[in-house]
């Protein structure tokens, strides 16, 4: 299985809408 690691997630806003079955991604969430 491929794994999207935390280095590549840095500074993105990552939203887990587990109940809604979807993942949100937004650029520039933090520094």
């Amino acid at each position: 299985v491929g794994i999207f690691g935390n280095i590549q997630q840095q500074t993105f806003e990552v939203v887990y809408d587990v109940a809604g079955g979807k993942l949100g991604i937004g650029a520039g969430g933090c520094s």
Partner: protein
Amino acid sequence: KEIASESLTESTHFHTVPLTSLFPTTTHCHQPHTTHASKGLRRGASSLKVVHKHGGCSTTLPKGKAANTPTLTDILKQDESRVNSIHARVNSARIDNLNAVSGVRKKKIPDSKAAVPAKSGTTLGTGNYIVTVGLGTPKNTLTLVFDTGSDLTWTQCRPCVKSCYSQQESIFDPKLSTTYSNITCSAAACSGLTSATGNNPGCSSSTCVYGIQYGDSSFSVGFFAKDRLSLTATDAVDNFLFGCGQNNQGLFGNTAGLLGLGRDALSLVSQTAAKYGKYFSYCLPTKRGANGHLTFGKGAAAPGSLKFTPFATDQGASFYFIDVQAIAVGGKQLSISPVVFKSSGTIIDSGTVITRLPPAAYSALRSAFRQGMSKYPQAPGLSILDTCYDLSKYTTVSVPKISFVLNGGVTMDLPLVGILLGNGASQVCLAFAGNGDASD
């Protein structure tokens, strides 16, 4: 015209930066003017500050030599053992699913054969993003690693019947908390430990006992308990089920334990479903970033640029699966058959450091990246990273941009910190690795 279009391509498809920006001389904490919480949280949301465990902003953990901060090689090695345990867990869950569907009992890789036991829980040592919470009444402050790749929240507990490793804050003492109680062996929650830890619970004088082992043979064993978990100064979760570790050994750094955010019923996300609606978000800051956050509930008005991709079909274990559809390097989409990603599946994991790709995808990424970096001298590899450069003779560098395309047209244009990882200017590496074998 030629030069103009060349430089245009450079700027649109390359990150061109001063070398110094890759290696800040100080690891001072970069205090931003706004934080997530200050943007005004929606009612009912709880936001915790997230910092990098080894960065300049982790106030609770000692820094530098005192903290025997692991070297980059240590972190990469721990990361590798975590990935092995994740592969073992996913394969084991897939074989279970296969057996359930086909009725034919496919042989599971015996634990001794699997790189690591296919138990729940994955190497903690690399988990390098931490939050601070309160436990018990009166509140005890604890710094925990937060991990979407595991489910059970645990912390070390006095009297440390067998062993406790040294942690920064004082070890939680259940005797001093008026809201603490052990879970009995007959309680339904006790049997829930099997799926949350991969081990059947034990029982010791009618108290439920948990055990969780991590990929690098780190482990925590202790009493299954409940107490008040304070996520922020104003928000707390009563009767929160967690592991009170009496025998804890392994690579846990100076943290007090782990905050499990997986999909199992015992994870913090599931236990607080009524309060936060199984909705949480985070932003992982760079080493010097100070405005990272972990927010439960619909947090601040999500940045306008937020785009959603559906979670991929559940492939067992309690990981969060996503659908990667393509990768682009330097503005060109790589010719990787969609089957490559479809057959391997991809999980998103806050506790794994380096992204792992199926071998065919990694070799396509690597050769395109090497082409874009051909003007720079190569340097020796670093542990699992096999594409490194010696940039010490340059004042500015131009690095091909890398983007991931997820199902639903979601494109992630990686910032430079998500592309390169360096051991100093003479060894700057592509921060990706390939899985050893497509059947991994």
